């Protein structure tokens, strides 16, 4: 589903060159749940943002469902509608009601009728468990509810892949569970997911594969059992000692 080959992303600013992602080669198969973990500044978020073209890559290749993002002729907007993204800060549209948040892109991008879009929107709100809030504005919702709306909003586009960029990091602890529950449900339904998270429990329980990144490099890769019980690399061992 997603293939990245020797992906590099460098930021240049104030005379400094930062290699945020430094030659990552990794693949995600259809229906697979891949969790990316690593210390802050390891480039995992940047890597994720490259996958739907929010960051332009410096070199290397990304193929999403066979389409090369590095190719200048690729219409990124077409790629993005197949790749849903959930952000750390939710990024709901504050001037729209919850239902409108779900309906807007369906109408604008997918050219669905309002009726069809609203039906789909309500169905998804029900699925993430906040059907009764459809007329509220995002600001009146708790963090957990907002993040669930954000997941529903991404799902409304019927993406083939879902990317999660630290979806629970901005939440109060008691709200983390409800968001993870929705994500687990998605995983059970066979959605292809790439998740950047610090939730080791989630990684252990749901992930098919764990990628460990540090300093922009893919350091270790494997099944959760392998990664959490028997990591090979020293940096991974160190990291796990600190977080577990």
């Amino acid at each position, binding site marked *: 589903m997603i293939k990245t080959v020797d992906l590099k992303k460098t930021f240049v600013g104030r005379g400094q060159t930062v290699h945020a992602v430094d030659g990552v080669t990794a693949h995600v198969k259809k229906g697979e749940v891949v969790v990316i973990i690593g210390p802050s500044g390891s480039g995992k978020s940047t890597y994720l943002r490259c996958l*739907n073209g*929010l960051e332009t890559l410096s070199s290397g290749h990304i193929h999403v469902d066979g389409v090369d993002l590095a190719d200048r002729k690729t219409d990124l*907007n077409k790629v*993005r509608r197949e790749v849903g*993204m959930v952000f750390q800060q939710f990024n709901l549209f504050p001037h729209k009601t919850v239902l409108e948040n779900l309906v807007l892109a369906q109408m604008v991008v997918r050219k669905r009728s309002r009726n069809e879009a609203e039906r789909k929107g309500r169905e998804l709100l029900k699925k993430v468990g906040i059907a009764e809030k459809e007329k509220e*504005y995002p*600001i009146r919702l708790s963090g957990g509810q907002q993040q669930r709306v954000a997941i529903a909003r*991404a799902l409304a586009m019927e993406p083939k892949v879902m990317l999660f960029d630290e979806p629970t990091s901005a939440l109060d602890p008691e709200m983390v569970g409800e968001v993870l529950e929705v994500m687990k449900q998605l995983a059970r339904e066979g959605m292809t997911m790439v998740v950047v998270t610090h939730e080791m429990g989630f990684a252990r329980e749901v992930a098919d594969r764990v990628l460990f990144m540090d300093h922009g490099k893919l350091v270790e890769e494997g099944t959760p059992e392998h990664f959490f019980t028997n990591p090979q690399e020293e940096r991974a061992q160190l990291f796990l000692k600190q977080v577990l």
Partner: protein
Amino acid sequence: MLSPLFFDVWNGIVNKDLKNWSWTLLTLLILFAMGAGLWVATKKIDYNWRWNRVPQYFLYHNENVKTVPFDGRVTKIDQAGDTATISVLSEDDDVQTFVVDAETVRVEVNEDLFEGDSLGSTFTWRIGPLLHGLWVTLWLSAAASLFGLIIGLITGLCRISSNITLRQLSIFYIEIIRGTPLLVQIFIFYFFLGTVLDISRIVAGISALAIFAGAYVAEIIRAGIQSIPKGQMEAARSLGMNVPQAMIYIILPQAFKRILPPLAGQFISLIKDSSLVSVIAITDLTKSGREVITSTFATFEIWFIVALLYLLLTSVLSQVIAWVERRLAVSD
């Protein structure tokens, strides 16, 4: 202006909120003292206040004198309420009737009339120069605001565009307009562009105002767009929207809400700045005021009235904007 103050005092009395209303009373007292000072000052220079001459420059009763177009004789006068119908028989035995106001009838039955004699008058209300000037200022500012908003929106978007030429051109425009006086710009528009492009003074005036306002609006819009968190654009793009769609549906509606107060300030400034177009002989409120003064010599009164009329326009605008702001606040 003063009504909120009186309202405060009244509230204070009703609610027995002694502390607040006594302060408001002090404010009123100071304002009153300043007014009294002005009055004394004008007394000293022997200025004759003639406020009674002002109203006729808003609205006046225009007298139309009806005259006979031929020699003839009045056959009858029918009075019906306030109007009178005068029938005149001409030398060719034609009967013609004239309708005038009953009080103004100047002829009697059987009176012989010569061509050009007056029979009486009718009155109609006409708009005076001050009201006409107010209207010109109003629509001139409205047109300039509309075009200024469009120019500002386009320039503001160019200013943050990734295209270097668009960005440089918009900066060039903004710097030139903000760095030169409006009065000079109006002269250039009228004397240079007006001559070269053969445009009328009204078009020159509106363009100068619109292009002047556009430069400021552009900076306001740029700041508004840049104040929207980056995540909003990223969220919109990640849903597959292209940049124009994200701008139209996501960024601009949110930015508009934030820039409404500075935008209102800009348009209020524009109304006031529109007084400068009087220098290219557009009969706006200011020029009307000057014209009325030349025929009345009521200099003080007219300028005070003109100031009051501008104040009326600007305060109505700020009320309207405040109302829009409250309407947009539902999602906060």
